């Protein structure tokens, strides 16, 4: 119990935990866990995508990602700081504001390319 609280605190800080999410089945890709985690990417809050079962439409549906974004750098940049490209976007700048680490963004890109 004593160990659990700091872990929760770390999760609240958005710091990556080394401990795996033990209670759930291992997702196919680490990027999917980061994408779906509400304290991390929380992509399903705004996007409809395969594997998520909510009809969010604040942002566009995420499908055919490889065809739509053949340049990996472009997709990375959108997740890192879309405001730089589109000043009126409502997409959080996940990299710029330290919501996700560069590694986590790369994992999400890997996962998006499977959609």
């Amino acid at each position, binding site marked *: 119990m004593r160990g659990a609280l700091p872990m929760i605190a770390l999760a609240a800080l958005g710091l990556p935990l080394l401990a795996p999410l033990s209670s759930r089945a291992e997702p196919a890709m680490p990027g999917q866990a980061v994408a779906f985690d509400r304290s991390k990417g929380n992509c399903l809050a705004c996007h409809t995508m395969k594997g998520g079962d909510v009809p969010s439409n604040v942002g566009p549906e995420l499908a055919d990602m490889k065809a739509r974004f053949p340049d990996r750098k472009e997709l990375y940049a959108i997740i890192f700081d879309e405001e730089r490209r589109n000043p009126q976007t409502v997409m959080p700048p996940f990299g710029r504001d330290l919501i996700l*680490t560069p590694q986590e963004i790369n994992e999400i890109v890997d996962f998006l390319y499977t959609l």
Partner: protein
Amino acid sequence: MSRRALAVVAAAGLAGLSCGALAATQSEFDAAYAAAAQAEAQAGALHDQWSPTEAALKAARQAAEEKRYDEASALARRAEALAKASISQAQAQQSLWREAVVK
């Protein structure tokens, strides 16, 4: 070093922050914390403090109290990075907010 501390140091490293020496001292922590607190005060003056910054500061103090200075220093550096990001946001918004106004 605990697994928790490892996670924090790893996180700080991944976030592109400089990783302190493995055995941080109290004075290293104090310096890191003072820098973070100063940045957070500046964010406050700009009316743009972030809850993750406050949480990182609090966790840093807690770790330092328990003499886990590596973890405490990493948390303080994360808090400073967050506070600086909030300052950049506030400064940019001083003029950018007008672009969003319904016209």
